[in-house]
C-alpha cells in the first residue's frame, strides 16, 4: 500500500500546509489592510502580533514536525548553560517526506521574512515608529524560525552522514575480518 502519492503530485498533509500558510498570510494581510479600516493602533498591534506569535508556534511545533520532520528547542542543562537541541526523524522517514510539502514549508518561511522586511522599509520611510515596532516583532519571530530550522536541517544532514559512515565502516571492518578468516 502506498500511502504517499508519487512525489510532486499532491500535498501529503494539506491541512497542515494550510495552517502553515494561514497565520502568516493573515498577519500580513491584517497589517496591510488594517490601515484602511481601523483607526486604533492598539488593535492593529495586538492582532498582528498575536497572529505572528501563533504562526511562530504553529511552524515550530506543528508544521516543522509534520512537513519536514525537524524540530528545535533550547534547554538549560544542569550546569546552567543553554543548549540548543535539534531533532529529526530517522532517515527512512525523512526520505519519505513529501517533496511538495517541504518545498512549501521552506519557501513560505523565507518569503514571509522578505515581506516583513519590505513592510519595515516602508514604515521607516514613512516615519511611523509605532509600525516599525510591529514589523520588528514579526520579523524577529520569523527570523528565529528560519535560523532554528536551518540549523536543524544542517545538523540532521551531519548526523545522517555520521551514521552512514559509521555503518559503512563497521560493515567494512567486519567484511575484512571475514575475508581474512576465510583465507
Amino acid at each position: 500500500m502506498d500511502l504517499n502519492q508519487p512525489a510532486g503530485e499532491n500535498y501529503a498533509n494539506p491541512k497542515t500546509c494550510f495552517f502553515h500558510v494561514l497565520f502568516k498570510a493573515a498577519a500580513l494581510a491584517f497589517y496591510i489592510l488594517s490601515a484602511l479600516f481601523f483607526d486604533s493602533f492598539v488593535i492593529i498591534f495586538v492582532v498582528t502580533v498575536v497572529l505572528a506569535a501563533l504562526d511562530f508556534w504553529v511552524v515550530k511545533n506543528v508544521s516543522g514536525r509534520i512537513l519536514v520532520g525537524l524540530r528545535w528547542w533550547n534547554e538549560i542543562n544542569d550546569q546552567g548553560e543553554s543548549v540548543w537541541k535539534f531533532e529529526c526523524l530517522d532517515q527512512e522517514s525523512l526520505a519519505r517526506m513529501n517533496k511538495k510539502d517541504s518545498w512549501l514549508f521552506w519557501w513560505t518561511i523565507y518569503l514571509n521574512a522578505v515581506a516583513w522586511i519590505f513592510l519595515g522599509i516602508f514604515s521607516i520611510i514613512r516615519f511611523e515608529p509605532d509600525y516599525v515596532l510591529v514589523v520588528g516583532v514579526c520579523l524577529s519571530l520569523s527570523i528565529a524560525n528560519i535560523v532554528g530550522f536551518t540549523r536543524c536541517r544542517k545538523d540532521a544532514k551531519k548526523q545522517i552522514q555520521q551514521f552512514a559512515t559509521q555503518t559503512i565502516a563497521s560493515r567494512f571492518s567486519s567484511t575484512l575480518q571475514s575475508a581474512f578468516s576465510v583465507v
Partner: protein
Amino acid sequence: MSHSDTIPLHPSSQSDIDEIENLINASVQSGPATVLPARPPSPPRASIPVSSTPFIQSNIPLPTYNKPPVVPAVVPAAVPPPLPNSSNSSSTRPSIGTSGFGSQANTLTEPVWDTVKRDLSRIVSNLKLVVFPNPYREDPGKALRDWDLWGPFFFIVFLGLTLSWSASVKKSEVFAVAFALLAAGAIILTLNVLLLGGHIIFFQSLSLLGYCLFPLDVGALICMLKDNVIVKVIVVCVTLAWSSWAAYPFMSSAVNPRRKALALYPVLLMYVSVGFLIIAID
C-alpha cells in the same frame, strides 16, 4: 517493513548495527551452518500512528510516553545519549529496549493537542515557580530551567491592554509606550546583569522578568475596576512589593554579591515606573 499509517520510531542504531554484524558474522562462519533464525519481529517499539488530521487528538497506544519532554540529545547517533538528570524527568520509563529514543521521537510524532497542553502546563508551572512561594526559590538556576516566552508575552500584552483601556485619551500611545517600555526594559536589564559579570542566560532572564509582571497585571486590573486613588496607591504598593520579591532571588544570585545592588536597582526602578504608570492613568 510496511506500515499502513505509522511512522516507525527510529530504532536504536546500536542494536541494529549489532544485529547486522551478528548476521554477517554468523553467515560467514564456516563449519556447520548455524543459520540464525529469521530476525524476530521488532519488539513493540511503539509505532505511533501519525494522525493525518493533526488537530484531532489521536489515541496513543502507549500513554506513558506523554510526559514532559526531557529529550536527550540528537538523533541518529550510534551511542545512546545520556539521559539528562533535570528536574522534570519523570519516574518510570517504559522498558522497550530503546533507551532514549522512545520519548524523543514521540515529540516528533505527537498530536498537536499534546503540544498545546504541554506548553500551557509549562507556562503555569513557570508562573508558580517564579511568583508564588515555593521550595525551589533557594536555587534559582534550577527553578526557571524550562524558560518560555509565551507567559511573558501574554502578561506584557495584558498589561498594555489594561493600561490602554483605563486611559481615557491617547489609548494607542499608552499601549505602545507600555509595551515598548517593558520589552526594552527587560532586554536592557538583562544586558545590565551580563555586563556586570553575572552568569545569567539571556532568554531565561527575559522570561523571569516577564513572569514577575504578573502581580502588576493583577494590580492594574484592580485599578482599572476601582477608580479610587487611595485604593490604587495601596494596591500598586502591594503588587510592586510582590513583584520585587519575586524577582529578587534570581537577579541577586546571578551576580557577584558586591554588585547585587547594582543589578537589583534598575529592576526596582522599572517596576516602580510601571506602578506610577498604573496610578497615574485616569
